[in-house]
């Protein structure tokens, strides 16, 4: 085991997979010589050359569309969208094409494609470098949507995504890149797509979350412990299709459920999670289900005061957890 950062984990996953399989290649804006604006692809250009670490023209629909063509051929492109906010021009290619290629061809063609995109706020990025855009893609059969919160999961899931036979959107929380460090095995491993993970065991309340807010929940749980309540924390990891069994199991575990995400509340992933619980284990709930999410505004403003107002943090999560625990 070695302790590395979240972004190093992502970098390692790409490097190792590119070394293992010559069909894996990277394309995107500034991913080459510069190594990416966040340095996620740092060193890959030097190691694998320009042909496999390709700086593309500034055009996201082409990035996705060209990757789809290459994936259909049988290669394994990893396309980087510089910020998740800039995935919007590529939505048609992702939703109409990548997601439906297998289905529409009756299983004849497929798209083993990964699209990586840094998302989330808390980095002074303002309205268009901070958005959580994942919910938009969590209603699209044919796609898989992944959003790891730890270096271990990030590496293991990215390797799974690269090896997956279907298109995977891989959302990386920008605030986690350097802020979150953790242990990663020195030997090859994968984390399966489609499985949520209990990141903390507890008895009194269940918190279901993903991404940066997982860390807030973990911190809050420490504090709550001192109040005499133990929190059970489920990290969704894969946002689409959801791991229904793990969600129901986690909800049953304590009967009190708090769903936490940074994304806007209305229409966020939390709704679907609530829907699953309300359908599957309503009678086992001891308190109304609660959601703690970003406010329903377009995104976090640039100004720091406003950004703090917008973003969740360990305190806000703690308050919601304590309230539910005391219910």
């Amino acid at each position, binding site marked *: 085991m070695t302790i590395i950062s979240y972004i190093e984990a992502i970098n390692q996953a790409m490097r190792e997979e590119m070394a293992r399989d010559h069909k894996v290649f990277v394309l995107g804006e500034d991913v080459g010589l510069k190594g990416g604006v966040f340095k996620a692809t740092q060193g890959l250009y030097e190691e694998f050359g320009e042909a496999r670490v390709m700086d593309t023209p500034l055009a996201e*629909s082409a990035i996705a569309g060209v990757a789809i063509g290459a994936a259909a051929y*049988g290669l394994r492109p990893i396309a980087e969208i510089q910020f998740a906010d800039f995935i919007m021009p590529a939505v048609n290619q992702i939703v109409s094409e990548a997601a439906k290629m297998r289905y529409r061809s009756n299983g004849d063609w497929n798209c083993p494609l990964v699209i990586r995109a840094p998302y989330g706020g808390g980095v002074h990025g303002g309205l268009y470098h901070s958005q959580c855009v994942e919910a938009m893609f969590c209603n699209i059969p044919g796609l898989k949507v992944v959003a790891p919160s730890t270096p271990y999961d990030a590496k293991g899931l990215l390797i799974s995504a690269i090896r997956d036979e279907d298109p995977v959107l891989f959302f990386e929380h920008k605030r986690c890149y350097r802020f979150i460090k953790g242990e990663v095995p020195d030997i090859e491993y994968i984390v399966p797509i489609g499985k949520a993970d209990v990141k903390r065991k507890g008895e009194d309340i269940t918190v279901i979350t993903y991404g940066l807010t997982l860390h807030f929940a973990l911190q809050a749980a420490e504090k709550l412990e001192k109040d005499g309540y133990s929190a059970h924390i489920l990290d969704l990891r894969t946002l689409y299709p959801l791991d229904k069994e793990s969600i129901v199991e986690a909800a049953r575990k304590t009967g009190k459920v708090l769903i936490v995400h940074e994304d806007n509340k209305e229409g966020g992933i939390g709704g679907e999670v609530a829907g699953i619980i309300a359908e599957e284990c309503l009678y086992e709930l001891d308190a109304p289900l609660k959601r703690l999410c970003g406010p329903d505004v377009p995104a976090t403003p640039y100004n720091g005061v406003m950004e703090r107002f917008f973003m969740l943090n360990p305190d806000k999560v703690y308050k919601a957890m304590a309230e539910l625990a005391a219910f």
Partner: protein
Amino acid sequence: MGDSGTSQIENKHNKLGLSDEQVLNMYRDMLLVRKIDERTWILNRSGKLPFVLSCQGQEAAQIGAAYALDKNKDYLCPYYRDAGVVIVFGMTAKDLMLNSFARAEDPNSGGRQMPGHFGGKKYRILSGSSPVTTQVPHAVGLALAGRLEGKDHVTFVSFGEGSSNQGDFHEGANFAGVHKLPVIFFCENNKYAISVPYSKQVACNSIADRAIGYGFPGISIDGSDVLEVYKVTKEAADRARKGEGPTLIEARCFRYMPHSSDDDDRTYRPEGEVAEEKKQDPIHQFTHYLKEVGVLNEEKEKEILKWVTKEIDEATEYAENAPSPAPEDTLKHIYAE
């Protein structure tokens, strides 16, 4: 009017390296897709097919271009009118009829997609969708993959002139230009996008004018002259294979039928326009040429027509009676199984 066996005009096809047999095959394929097309309209009007998309008036462009490719290695990203392109790459009348009837056996999509949404891995035809122009970046990706894998295939992608206004055309063409990828961008300009005429779609003289903005050649040609299309596409394919990059070809065509079987073109097309255009019917032109150069005669013509009719009769009969997918098949092929 030229049904004598002695050649009155220059033999163009031999000069292009095409044998008499090859041009006869081209002729047969043009006739086949025309007649399949006509048959699907009859089936539509008699209530047997819910939907038809037509290629009538574009056969020379499609067949001429497809013959210029290497059907054993090149890749296709065709659009919904390209029956003529996919036929050359191996699809049969039966395949197309299975597609029209949306049968389980339809090799394109197993009945999942509307007619004209082609695809078939064994033919190297990438599955296409309905949103126009999305196939353009795919073609670029297939070409890029070939380069990365050290292959020398060319990718052929086609689309209508209206569709050339989508951002994906621009982004895809630019990408191919920057990386000098072996892609042929083939615009079938039939002067209408449903009801909207060329003049309301674009302000350039020719769609080929767009190529210079991507740093590669653009050529506008008479899409009703199958040999001209062959020639120019062949040159583009040769250039591409030699690593000299993409070409944009505009083939000026006609759309003889309404946009689709759901459309009534009388509301927007000037009366007599189609009749006028039919004077340049690509199939008549080619028939005329073949007779003039002595490759085709009445007898041969009848023989081919007979074969075509039989093909279509059998294909229709087969497809009409072929089973639909099972209802639960709806749930298959969302992810790898």
